[in-house]
């Protein structure tokens, strides 16, 4: 099989399954072995006395809209806190030589090898003692931990792409710390930093076990709602299918955004000397 055919097969495997999810979310009566539903949500909702499928998700009863807002707020805060904490560390790892560097690198990778469940159970126990259990802030702190390794790694690579000679040249010509940051570092690093932040945003929106255990069910995100509705090995009901599509949304947005961001990064690299 040619590389192109193989690549396209995987593109289909990656995307095609979602078609069935879309159909399932729009179905009203879908009996085996029909390939497509015999009756659809759009027809049934005219006579239904209770909100069905997508209508139910939009209604206050499902709490799906507040959960989506919580997901976005939590993910944005996680990305922000993560950046503030990880960027300085990445800058050091990219540009400085120092003793104990290996130990620092390993320490920053530990969240990758500690199971999320073990971390979540441990944090849940301690969060109760300090009063952070079931709070938004407690969940935020919990979310930053698993994003740290990814942020540090990506930002270190981004920082390594920054040519310090350019900054030195600017300083020789009288640029101050602020000017170097504003006119050089920020425009040159922005695409990479944005990509890292977007990834942290996405990762936070995926976390279920940490959110459930530290949030004690009181901090409800879209992924948590989906987790609560799944299971039992039964075929999906329309509401769960619709919720799964909502949970897919951030990833699709990121795919579109990231493609734009990374293209710009390539262009910038071409413009930067030697970087």
């Amino acid at each position, binding site marked *: 099989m040619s590389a192109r055919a193989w*690549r396209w097969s*995987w593109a289909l495997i*990656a995307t095609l399954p979602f078609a*069935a*999810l879309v159909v399932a979310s729009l179905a009203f009566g879908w009996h085996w072995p029909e390939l497509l539903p015999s009756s659809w949500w759009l027809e049934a909702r005219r006579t239904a006395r209770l909100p069905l499928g997508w209508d139910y998700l939009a209604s206050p009863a499902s709490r799906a809209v507040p959960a989506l807002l919580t997901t976005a707020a939590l993910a944005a805060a996680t990305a922000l806190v993560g950046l503030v904490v990880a960027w300085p*560390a990445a800058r050091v790892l990219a540009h400085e030589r120092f003793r104990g560097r290996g130990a620092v690198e390993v*320490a920053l990778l530990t969240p990758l090898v500690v199971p999320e*469940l073990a971390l979540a159970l441990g944090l849940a126990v301690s969060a109760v003692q300090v009063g952070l259990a079931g709070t938004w802030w407690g969940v935020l702190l919990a979310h930053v931990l698993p994003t740290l390794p990814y942020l540090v790694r990506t930002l270190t690579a981004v920082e390594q792409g920054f040519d310090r000679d350019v900054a030195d040249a600017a300083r020789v010509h009288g640029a101050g710390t602020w000017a170097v940051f504003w006119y050089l570092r920020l425009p040159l690093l922005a695409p990479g930093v944005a990509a890292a932040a977007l990834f942290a945003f996405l990762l936070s929106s995926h976390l279920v076990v940490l959110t459930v255990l530290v949030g004690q069910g009181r901090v409800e995100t879209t992924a948590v709602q989906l987790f609560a509705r799944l299971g039992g090995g039964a075929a999906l009901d329309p509401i769960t299918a619709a919720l799964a599509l909502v949970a897919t949304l951030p990833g699709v947005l990121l795919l579109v955004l990231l493609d734009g961001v990374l293209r710009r990064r390539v262009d910038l690299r071409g413009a930067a000397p030697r970087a």
Partner: protein
Amino acid sequence: MSQRWRVVLGLAPALTLLAIGLGAALVGSLAQSLGHAPAFGVEAFPTTRYYQAVWSDPAVTAAAWRTLAGAIPATLLALLLGTALGLALPARRDLAASLVQLPLLVPYVVAVALASVWLAGGGMLSRLAAAVGVIDAPQALPRLLDGPTGIGALLVLVWKQVPFTALLVAAVRAGADPRLVEVAQVFGASRAQLLRYVTLPQVMPALVGAGVITLAFNLGVLEVPLLLGGGTHDTLAVKAWRAYADPDLSQRPQALALAWTLTGGVLLSVVTALGAARRWLPGARRR
């Protein structure tokens, strides 16, 4: 500012947060697993009785084997297919190369939802099989979810993780010196020789990294085996979760002892896998 201070101040926020987070997770739960849980009427600190109970329970041993039997094939399959896909990704990304990333960008619970809509009894797969006349009842297809095979969980893990390996492999290839391949070709290397002696050693360090991260994740993952295991095929993570969620709160120390056993097992597996990779794989020793 001296170099020393730049290093310390730069690293301090990340390391402090990590120390607080991991420290908090460690201290409270370790104490509880050793019998300090006055809130639930357990005060026997320090005792190893919960660990002893966990380790001598045949159900836990069975769960440990199931954890390994679920995680290792999924990891190897994801590495194999991910490498093949990564080598097929072009330097200039096209639409297909963008689309293959989608599984990486959705939560595991969405992948579980996809597995339900396709693989459940009466799901899309059985409808398609009926449409082409292979089966005439939803039960006629072997159970893919909840069954003893665990194939649903395997498919979910592999589907999610193939792009992860593929992107890492593609990134290494994009950064590698293309002249190496040209030189090998000039000297008449076949495609198989190119793969064996040039490409694989180039991507091996990234592959080992991807493999270790994937293995650690697959050993510890909760959502997938919990939602697709059907209640009869609990892994260690699922067992810990059930013990924690038990209405009998005195089960909590046991849940934490299970979680610590799982963590220890994951760390041990990671070290073993790294050691084995360094020992036997070409090119893995570098870095």
